[in-house]
């Protein structure tokens, strides 16, 4: 079964990611070992963005074809997007505590990620409250499209809003040039997260199919 294979592959990747993040990559000079949270945080947010892109694709696909498999894609991707956004925010918050001294700061990136989380939690709540599969798919698709179109608007508004009150965050716009081993460890973890995402997505979509026909 290919889904099962994907699962083992993801597990293998995550193992490799841990080895790369803790064994191979060196201790970062400025931040110390706390920086290793990055190997969790960055792949998680990249995966979340992949998920939200798939929500958009599934939404447009459903409205164009009216085939429920597109809706299943959007629904599964949204759920996973929320999951990985949650991982992103929690790991970012834990990283922020020793780095900034606070659990939560209205940093531009944390804030816009939190807004995204709220948008897609709303999406999932909406899905839970419509019983008719066709209406649920249509409404969800509209929210999915609007949510995706909103991502850049949210991004810029939050960035400018922060710039207004506080010119630059401690992290700066981009963390200073990344050393090759760190970049490599990030890459391994990113691949592992993408595999895990693909595995979850396949299983979630299969379950959605069963739910429809049950």
């Amino acid at each position: 079964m290919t889904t099962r294979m994907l699962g083992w592959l993801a597990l293998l990747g995550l193992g490799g990611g841990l080895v790369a993040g803790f064994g191979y990559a060196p201790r970062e000079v400025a931040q110390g070992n706390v920086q290793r949270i990055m190997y969790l945080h960055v792949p998680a947010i990249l995966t979340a963005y992949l998920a939200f892109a798939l929500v958009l694709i599934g939404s447009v696909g459903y409205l164009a074809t009216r085939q429920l498999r597109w809706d299943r894609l959007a629904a599964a991707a949204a759920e996973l997007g929320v999951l990985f956004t949650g991982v992103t925010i929690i790991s970012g918050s834990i990283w922020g505590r020793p780095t900034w001294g606070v659990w939560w700061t209205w940093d531009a990136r944390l804030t816009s990620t939190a807004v995204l989380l709220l948008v897609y939690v709303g999406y999932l709540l909406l899905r839970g409250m419509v019983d008719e599969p066709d209406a649920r798919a249509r409404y969800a698709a509209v929210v999915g499209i609007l949510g995706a179109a909103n991502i850049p608007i949210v991004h810029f508004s939050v960035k400018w809003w922060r710039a207004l009150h506080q010119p630059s965050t401690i992290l700066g716009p981009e963390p200073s040039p990344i050393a090759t081993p760190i970049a490599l460890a990030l890459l391994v973890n990113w691949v592992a997260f993408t595999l895990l995402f693909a595995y979850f997505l396949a299983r979630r979509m299969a379950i959605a199919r069963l739910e429809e026909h049950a």
Partner: protein
Amino acid sequence: MSPMPDNWGYVLAAYGVAAVLLVGYWRYLAARAHELSQPVRGGRKGQA
């Protein structure tokens, strides 16, 4: 730029919470799939 203390506790916490979330989701998927693969009990006839 002074090097920061190691803070392994925070690293562990971050990975721990992430593991709980991801494994929790995986178990939820497994439970749901198991539930759905069971034969439907008691064919209740619905009335419109």
